[in-house]
């Protein structure tokens, strides 16, 4: 069941990449947008949860700049907890005019973990992320990201969250 839940989004990314190859976008693979919204589906490996972590990315610089500011809020459910992370960080999106666009990022994260009979657990820490987006159209992209977080306050620990996403340039 879990394998299928992971495999289907991966297949969707591969299909999107294949479709894009058959019908390539013009020389500017991505639209000149300030904002990008994305809807990543994520599974957290340490402390099992699964759900969505929607995000918005803002390009503060000129067209062609790799820099993005990223804000994300997730809602992920698991067998023993509801996980609500809030992330704020920097992301560099490379090769913005190409179909395949690597990305790396880092930032701070506040994690809430909720159960019915205990006060919410709040942890503060940092994250790093790496991944790749594939432009399907000038506005639509699909991709994969992997994030590692390290919580420093509120209970130490490290986590790992692979995610697949669809993003749209506004």
């Amino acid at each position, binding site marked *: 069941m879990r394998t299928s839940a992971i495999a289907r989004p991966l297949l969707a990314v591969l299909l999107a990449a294949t479709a894009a190859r058959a019908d390539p976008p013009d020389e500017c693979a991505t639209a000149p947008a300030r904002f990008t919204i994305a809807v990543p589906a994520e599974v*957290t*490996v340490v402390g*099992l949860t699964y759900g969505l972590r929607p995000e918005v990315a803002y390009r503060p610089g000129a067209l062609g700049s790799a820099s993005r500011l990223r804000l994300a809020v997730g809602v992920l459910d698991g067998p*023993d907890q509801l996980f609500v992370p809030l992330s704020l960080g920097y992301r560099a999106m490379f090769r913005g005019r190409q179909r395949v666009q690597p990305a790396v990022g880092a930032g701070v994260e506040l994690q809430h973990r909720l159960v019915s009979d*205990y006060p919410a657990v709040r942890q503060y820490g940092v994250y790093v992320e790496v991944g790749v987006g594939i432009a399907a159209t000038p506005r639509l992209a699909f991709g994969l990201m*992997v994030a590692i977080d390290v919580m420093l306050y509120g209970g130490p*620990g*490290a986590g*790992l969250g692979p995610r697949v996403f669809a993003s749209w340039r506004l």
Partner: protein
Amino acid sequence: MRRALVLAALLLLPERLAVAHTPGKLLASTPYEVRNPADSYALFGVFHTGAERFVVKLAHATRFAAPVEIFVPHVDELRRHRPAYAVVGPGLPAPSAAELAALPAPLPAGWGAEVELNQVTPRPVLFESIMRRFYWTSEPLAVVFPAGPSEIWVWSPAKTTGKFGLGFGVEEGGGYLAALDDWSLYAY
């Protein structure tokens, strides 16, 4: 692949954050022999029938005070699962008649017992930040282990089944990578 990713995450953890309990797997068929009784252990097992008795064997050079705690994953299907434990050995206090009756096996001659039947209501909750899981816990009970051999017995008084964890000891170390040997037991 998942194990490799978890390993990468743990290796990136700053050293000062990387201390944790030593993990281990409890089997009803084989007593668990504790090598370093001063270390902090988190041993996990599963009641498949509810009739099992899990045994942990220790040997302290001198009397040694340490917390002992039993916990159960915080999931709905284990809401009524309340395993009990007893620290048994020579030099421990004589249990009450009720505690003696609750033990899963007769005490050897000359042995006493510290018995925790895990009946606190409402059930205390524990968040364990390394594995990022919630548990229902008996809460830590300080036990003075005698010099020489002693044992911890774990059983399910209501014959309920499911996972449980047993924590005891003091010194945390870096043996947590052993959790990768049986990741699903510890993590999920």
